[in-house]
């Protein structure tokens, strides 16, 4: 198996992009990634695209063919990858495996979601849960994560303010990210007093509905220096599956797939969680960001709230989380999120993250979840192999 390096990354502006269609978004991300990699479209050998629900959001399936055709890459083999909100993370992993296996040399992994063409995105998002046992019984994603939050507060004394603080830190970081959907700061009071969504989660605990795309160009590590002086290496790519439903779990305050995937990743990379300098976690809701802090092993179970309250997750904290602004404030175009997370880590490791740069970041990690944890993808990247 060959080592893999990233030579180009991109992310479109995230937000309510009324003037950009599905195909506009993916084309923009792809072209920007090629420009960043300083390569030509003709160099691309294969493409993987993460997308959760183009069928429900823009009534378009068969998007792999649409994309390769629209961006002029025919006949390059293009494959859509779907794992709900982890679609991007899995598209990244498919690309990594294609290069690592020796099947292809230059591969682009991208993610795209156009969510604002529907009036209500909730039914489409709900398809990431178990339709028969959750969605059709009336459970929506905010309500599922609200139950997790309630239980976490009950079990560990996590406070409403600690949850809110996770959103506050995200917004603080996003205020320094020009591609973020919400590049402005908020306060704990504002979070707590925002519109109630599902008790205890209010509007500002929830990631938004977002249009956006991101892309990453990968080559074999041994050839990386032919393309760039600053390749970022893939140190680990791990994926785990967990129960699709919450009620099948022994403990709903732990996302088992996150634990399994992260431990595999640490082993593959030969690192300890303490070695990770910067991490992008899947905070579709503030509680899920808190769970990630615990389940990735930064702190022991139950201590996530205190870690957030003490500022350990801030840019200058012990383990900086979501320098991009996270799903909450950078935005969460479902299928693009896993790729955008990796792009942020690449910028951090290259030292190109501007006002949100984590000083001296050498090793970074991404954590991408599908549904409430039915799928988890964890990737580790380094300036060195």
């Amino acid at each position, binding site marked *: 198996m060959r080592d893999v390096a990233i030579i180009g990354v991109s992310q479109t502006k995230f937000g*309510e992009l*009324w003037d950009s269609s599905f195909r506009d978004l993916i084309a923009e991300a792809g072209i920007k990634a090629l420009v960043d990699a300083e390569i030509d479209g003709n160099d691309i050998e294969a493409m993987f695209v993460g997308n959760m629900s183009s069928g429900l959001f823009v009534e378009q399936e068969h998007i792999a063919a649409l994309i390769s055709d629209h961006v002029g890459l025919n006949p390059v083999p293009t494959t859509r990858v779907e794992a709900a909100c982890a679609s991007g993370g899995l598209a990244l992993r498919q690309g990594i495996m294609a290069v690592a296996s020796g099947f292809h040399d230059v591969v682009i992994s991208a993610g795209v979601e156009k969510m604002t063409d529907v*009036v209500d995105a909730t039914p489409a998002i709900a398809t990431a849960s178990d339709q028969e046992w959750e969605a059709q019984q009336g459970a929506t994603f905010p309500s599922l994560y609200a139950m997790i939050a309630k239980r976490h507060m009950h079990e560990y004394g996590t406070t409403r303010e600690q949850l809110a603080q996770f959103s506050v830190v995200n917004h603080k970081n996003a205020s320094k990210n020009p591609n973020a959907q919400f590049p402005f700061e908020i306060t704990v009071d504002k979070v707590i007093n925002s519109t109630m969504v599902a008790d205890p989660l209010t509007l500002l605990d929830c990631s938004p509905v977002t249009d956006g795309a991101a892309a990453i160009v990968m080559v074999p590590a041994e050839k990386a220096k032919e393309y760039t002086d600053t390749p970022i290496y893939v140190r680990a790519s791990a994926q785990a599956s967990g129960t699709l439903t919450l009620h099948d779990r022994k403990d709903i305050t732990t996302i088992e797939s996150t634990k399994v995937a992260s431990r595999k990743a640490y082993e593959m990379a030969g690192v300890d969680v303490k070695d990770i300098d910067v991490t992008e976690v899947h905070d579709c809701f503030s509680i899920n960001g808190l769970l990630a802090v615990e389940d990735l092993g930064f702190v022991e179970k139950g201590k996530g709230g205190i870690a957030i309250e003490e500022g350990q997750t801030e840019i200058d904290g012990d383990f900086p989380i979501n320098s991009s602004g996270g799903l909450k404030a950078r935005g969460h175009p479902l299928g693009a999120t896993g790729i955008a997370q990796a792009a942020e880590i690449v910028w951090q490791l290259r030292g190109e993250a501007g006002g949100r740069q984590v000083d001296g970041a050498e090793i970074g990690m991404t954590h991408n979840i599908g549904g409430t944890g039915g799928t988890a993808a964890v990737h580790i990247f380094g300036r060195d192999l």
Partner: protein
Amino acid sequence: MVGIVGYGAHVPSYRIKVEEIAKVWGDDPVALSNGLVVNEKSVPSADEDTATIAVTAARYALARAQIDPSKIGAVYVGSESHPYAVKPTASIVAEAVCATPKLTAADLEFACKAGTAGIQMNMGLVESGMIEYGLAIGADTSQGAPGDALEYTASAGGAAYVIGKDNTIADIDHTCSFTTDTPDFYRREGQDYPSHGGRFTGEPAYFKHVLSAAKMLFDETDSKPEDYDYACFHQPNGKFYLRAGKKLGFTSEQIKQGLLTPNIGNTYSGAVPLALSNILDVANPGDKIFVISYGSGAGSDGFTITVKDEIVERRELAPKTQEIIDDKTYVDYAVYAKFKGKIKM
């Protein structure tokens, strides 16, 4: 010069408060009122509809116009809630004000801006010499589905304008329009309630069209906000209106007279005609008024208007807009539901 010969307003007297609606649906009334800048809305009684509102407004307009109604050569009623799908409201109005039979009449629909479209059509007919006077009305008894965000604002009301060259009380100095195909809000044939694009109704719809039409109007008249004494825009809620005014560079002093939505809700086709009538009720001769309507689907009509000396005496010949608004009776949600036909039997 073509201008306004007479104008008249009408708003049904029943009101329902935002907090009364919020109580039914479990919403936070303070957050809603502050967010939408709407406190209460008008409610048409069981026997009021777009035709009755249009007729009342037209009678007041003719009272101020002081013309022989048989000289009216065109009647256009703009609404998205015409009582009949097939059968004109305009003919009812024309008959009621004794303008029949020598005239053309038609109903217009362009969401919330069909009233101002009717003013423009009459301007063209008057300018061309085809008619001496024309009557343009914007009136609605708009629909908001139970529990939908629209229910807090969709209300009823209208205003009528007699357009002509002679006996005018205000000149219409210029008009222009900005139109695109933008499906932000629509109701299909047979549907009781309209659908809307949520947040899509904001930036790419209301603001894009209102601000673009305003820029066009400034450019074509070589004018700027400080040249006007009053400005008014379409007002689906108070928040959009205030933000549009601020973005265009108008002061709160210039736009406050035209803002009626906080106390009567969104009267749709009636909104800008009513806002203008409230300004004409108080404007001094020589005052200049900047007007931008908006209709979903989507488009905006812009007008610049200069008030003439004649307005001072003639506006006393019919009830003022604020007097009409102040004559109100509150109803609870149950009575509102009955009046609006939301109770199915």
